[in-house]
């Protein structure tokens, strides 16, 4: 029984992460009618962002007390959100903005290209080998800081961060990581829902999603709404990236692809364009994946990804609007 509960907990947590990514994806699709294939890469960028912020030897102060760790976590979350948002907005500005109005397929191909480009840049800048988070640093007693150490974190120099060793200690204990992850997830999910459902900006975004022309006619300018949506989506994906690496370890340039695809699936299942739908879809997917992995025999679990995709196909064929989605599109 407790095994089931643990697995349910794991499933929910995984589902929340998928849900976070899916929310960003759904929001962008709703507002810009654009399947942002590069969304998984914002996830990856967020993870790397948090990685570097944890590596910065700024936490020399403090001797690893709990408060410093708390602040490190907070900063990590903020940095991951910020880096995800930044890259997202950049991609929108540079890649999508003009072509979005012109051609659906070309926009999609540009998205694919952006995704590949980001992955390639990741490969070159960060190197392809996975980096642990945060055990990239050997626990080193506080030493004198060096400027070079700060400028070249990827060189793998031992970091003079006593705090990181604290984080490492936390990370190594599953319950600690789970607690952190759970709390951040809860905040992020709540924040996303609040933003979309209760704020004026969220209302504007929803208006543009439903009908851009009508929104325009009541004075809502779609372009800023789109930029904000991209920023929010990117931020959510970035946070998910940080949490993913915290919980499952491993930060590498291709880490965004599979979760990105799964987020697509979650968004479609839940109804593309619906925020709550994306969350529901993500949860369902996370639960399904975790439970099937836990309970199905070993040989079958290799087909996990295939099952996810099969689920996608089934939904597309039977109920393309997903569970909660609305129909976007012109009448005959």
């Amino acid at each position: 029984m407790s095994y089931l509960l643990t697995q349910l907990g794991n499933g929910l947590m995984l589902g929340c992460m998928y849900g976070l990514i899916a929310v960003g994806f759904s929001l962008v699709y709703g507002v810009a009618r654009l399947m942002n294939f590069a969304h998984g890469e914002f996830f990856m960028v967020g993870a790397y962002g948090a990685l570097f912020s944890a590596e910065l030897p700024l936490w020399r102060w403090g001797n690893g007390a709990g408060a410093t760790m708390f602040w490190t976590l907070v900063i990590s979350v903020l940095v991951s959100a910020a880096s995800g948002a930044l890259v997202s907005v950049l991609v929108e500005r540079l890649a999508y903005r003009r072509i979005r109005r012109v051609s659906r397929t070309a926009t999609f191909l540009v998205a694919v290209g952006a995704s590949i480009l980001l992955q390639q840049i990741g490969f070159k800048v960060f190197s392809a080998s996975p980096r642990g988070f945060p055990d990239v640093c050997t626990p080193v007693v506080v030493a004198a800081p060096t400027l070079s150490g700060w400028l070249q974190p990827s060189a793998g120099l031992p970091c003079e961060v006593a705090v990181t060793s604290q984080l490492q200690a936390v990370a190594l204990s599953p319950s600690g990581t789970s607690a952190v992850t759970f709390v951040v997830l809860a905040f992020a999910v709540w924040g996303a829902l609040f933003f979309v459902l209760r704020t004026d900006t969220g209302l504007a975004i929803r208006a543009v999603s439903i009908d851009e022309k009508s929104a325009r006619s009541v004075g809502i300018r779609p372009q800023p709404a789109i930029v904000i949506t991209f920023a929010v989506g990117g931020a959510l994906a970035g946070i998910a990236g940080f949490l993913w690496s915290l919980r499952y370890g491993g930060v590498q340039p291709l880490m965004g692809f599979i979760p990105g695809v799964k987020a697509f699936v979650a968004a479609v299942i839940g109804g593309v364009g619906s925020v709550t739908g994306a969350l529901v879809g993500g949860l369902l997917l996370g639960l399904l994946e975790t439970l099937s992995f836990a309970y199905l025999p070993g040989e079958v679990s290799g087909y996990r990804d295939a099952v996810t995709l099969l689920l996608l196909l089934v939904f597309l064929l039977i109920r393309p609007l997903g569970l909660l989605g609305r129909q976007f599109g012109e009448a005959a």
Partner: protein
Amino acid sequence: MALLADYILTHLVYLSILVIFAAGVVVLYGLAGVFTLGHQGFMAIGAYFAAGIACLMPAGGSPILAAALLVASVIAGVGGAVAGGLLLTGPSVRLRGDYMALATLAFAEILVALIRNTEALGGMRGLDVASLLPRASGSARLPILGTYALASVAMAAGAVLAVQRLGRSRLGIALRALRDDELAARSMGLENRRARLISFTMGAGLCGLAGCLYAHFSGHVSPRDFGFVQGAMVLLYVVLGGSTAVGTVCAVAVVYFLDEGLKLRCFGLLTGGLGDALVNWKDAILAGLLIALLAWRPYGLLTANRLRSEP
């Protein structure tokens, strides 16, 4: 000199296979307007079916048997791919553009996942294809390679001509009409289902043929050869080529050339640090370049303004 000829001939073969694959996508996307991200699945079917039949060849079998198996493998490969295409016909009629793309992507990824998990098909490592064709080695290497190059170029040319002819025929015009404006076309008596049946038959068939040829010429098939990125690249060629057969061939050739050129440091022109950087960043450069090209000319490099409507 022989090395250069070897290089050129080998690449001609692979280029031709790519062209045949792209021709299939021209039918699917260019003519029928199906936003496909799963065409690499058809190629995979073709390749694996061909590999499977080739493995029936006993060691030291007669050339006649080899030839028969060769023909059988092509028939099986193309047939299997067509069957896969027909499977997607129904959904394609019911799903709108973006959703259709996801469905085709799911189709291809499921196939690849199934292959990866099936030991009998070689799993992740892939299968070695028993050689039904005479090996190009030793003194006979260049002539044999030359024959292969000639044969594959001929097949590629045939595929391109067939697609072109289809595009200009009454059937092709009907396909394009359905693509341009489905409601208007249906109101004029054109049936979507029939159009899709035909398009998937020919499109998937060509992709499958490319797969068969790939299996035989490269001697090895693995799931990695039929990934999503490879498929998306071919769609990119078709879009850059203005969704026409000839344009696509140009796009394929140019990008292939660029890719090889960058790999070889602009064919040996750039050396040292710059050359190294070029090789290292080749994929990023290409991706960036292609994005820029698409942003500049989303309807194809030669069509400046909106001549065609979007599927």
